[in-house]
């Protein structure tokens, strides 16, 4: 995987404009989260949960952006399908980073929130972690792992609902609970545990997606 490959994939996705609905939805989610009042931390809790859904969506956008024939040329040019698949996942995660920065900065700039450095750091890590998990799930729901978009969308919505509805489900529900508490205790430790679980989930999802995709190449 090279910077040139990432640049090409990013340029292709940017031109497709398929990322626009996902980004607009996230901006709406940030506005709603900010309008809900409460502390900056509770705001971060809701926007980091939204980040998971948006990262999943953006990953599906990035991995599905190229036409299969175009992908074949890219694979041959860089010398391997694994590199291209990994580069698409990295591109999707990189695409989430401006949204993460925006989500963390927005409540401080526009809202009436005041937050300590530790709260901002907790919010930053929470968003990075949920973005990573969203990218992992997105890799599992993308072609060639799932070939039908309808199933991918249904499963994606199901995963997002499950992440919010199942008590203590890592990482979204756990972070929502931890950051939304009135007086969060041991916040750093809670986020660290959630982050470790999220990284493990993302790794399993990405490796699983890669193996399935390789078997279907």
């Amino acid at each position: 995987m090279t910077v040139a490959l990432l640049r090409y994939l990013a340029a292709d996705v940017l031109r497709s404009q398929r990322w626009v609905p996902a980004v607009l939805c996230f901006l709406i989610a940030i506005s709603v989260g900010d309008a809900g009042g409460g502390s900056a931390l509770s705001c971060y809790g809701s926007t980091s949960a939204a980040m998971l859904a948006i990262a999943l969506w953006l990953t599906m956008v990035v991995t599905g952006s190229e036409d299969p024939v175009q992908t074949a040329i890219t694979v041959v040019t860089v010398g391997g399908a694994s590199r291209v698949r990994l580069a698409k996942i990295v591109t999707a995660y990189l695409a989430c980073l401006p949204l993460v920065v925006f989500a963390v900065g927005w409540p401080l700039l526009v809202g009436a929130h005041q937050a300590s450095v530790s709260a901002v750091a907790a919010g930053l890590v929470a968003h990075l972690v949920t973005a990573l998990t969203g990218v992992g799930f997105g890799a599992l729901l993308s072609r060639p792992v799932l070939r039908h978009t309808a199933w991918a969308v249904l499963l994606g919505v199901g995963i997002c609902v499950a992440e919010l509805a199942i008590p203590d489900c890592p990482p979204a529900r756990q972070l929502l609970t931890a950051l939304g508490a009135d007086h969060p205790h041991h916040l750093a430790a809670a986020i660290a545990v959630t982050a470790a679980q999220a990284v493990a989930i993302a790794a399993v999802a990405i490796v699983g997606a890669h193996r399935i995709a390789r078997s279907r190449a």
Partner: protein
Amino acid sequence: MHTVDVARVRKRFSARGRWVLDGVDLAADPGTLTVIAGGNGSGKSTLLRIVAGASEPTSGKVRRRARSVGYVPERLPTSLRMTGNQYVAHMGRMRGLTASRAARRASDLFDRLELRPGPDVPIGSLSKGNSQKVALTQALLAMPELLVLDEPFSGLDEPAAAALIDLVEEARSAGTAALVSAHDTEIAGGADESFVLTDGRLVPGLAAAATMMELLLQPLDQRAVVAALPAVLDHQWSGRLLKVWSHDADAVLRFALGAGWSLVEARRTGGVR
């Protein structure tokens, strides 16, 4: 040492699907031209994708794969959202070329292939032949070890086809092994090896011995006609006229006359269409 070497390659696209490739052995040496012919759906593109590294076989071995490959698919997708220059610049960077070197080479190739209206037009708005020229340019930017061209002449005008033959020759002179699926007699005539892919297997040498017959048919269901014809390598419809290429002209002729069709023309060719 071979540039590419695959052995007993089989490929199917679903667990119970038919074998598109059924035990293919193929090797190409540096500086050689190998032409693969075959009818529509015979598996030429599938084989080329495996050899190029864009796809994996269901079973069999890829003993050796070239380190750098230039690959041209049958058609560059119109969904590409870049201009020819932008796309080729990205491909050049991915191949490790500097921007200026890639631009110089691309400009030269675009000129020789006569890309019209030009390289700054979105690929999606180009004709099939002109988008094919962009695909050829990206494949030839840096001289690869292996050049894989899937029906590169389809849609190309005559000057571009002639320029492509020259470019393939230049690549061969530089040690590039070229693997071409072609319906073109000119390039088949200059091939070091030619094969016909039929029933999932490569049959050597038949491309050079093909006979083209033009038949005038009674109005019938076209698919049924082609399915019934024996030993057909390739075919092309033009109204009620059917051109068929075969290595067993007698069998085709017997069948055609038995069906009450008229033979308009029959001639030997250097290869299939």
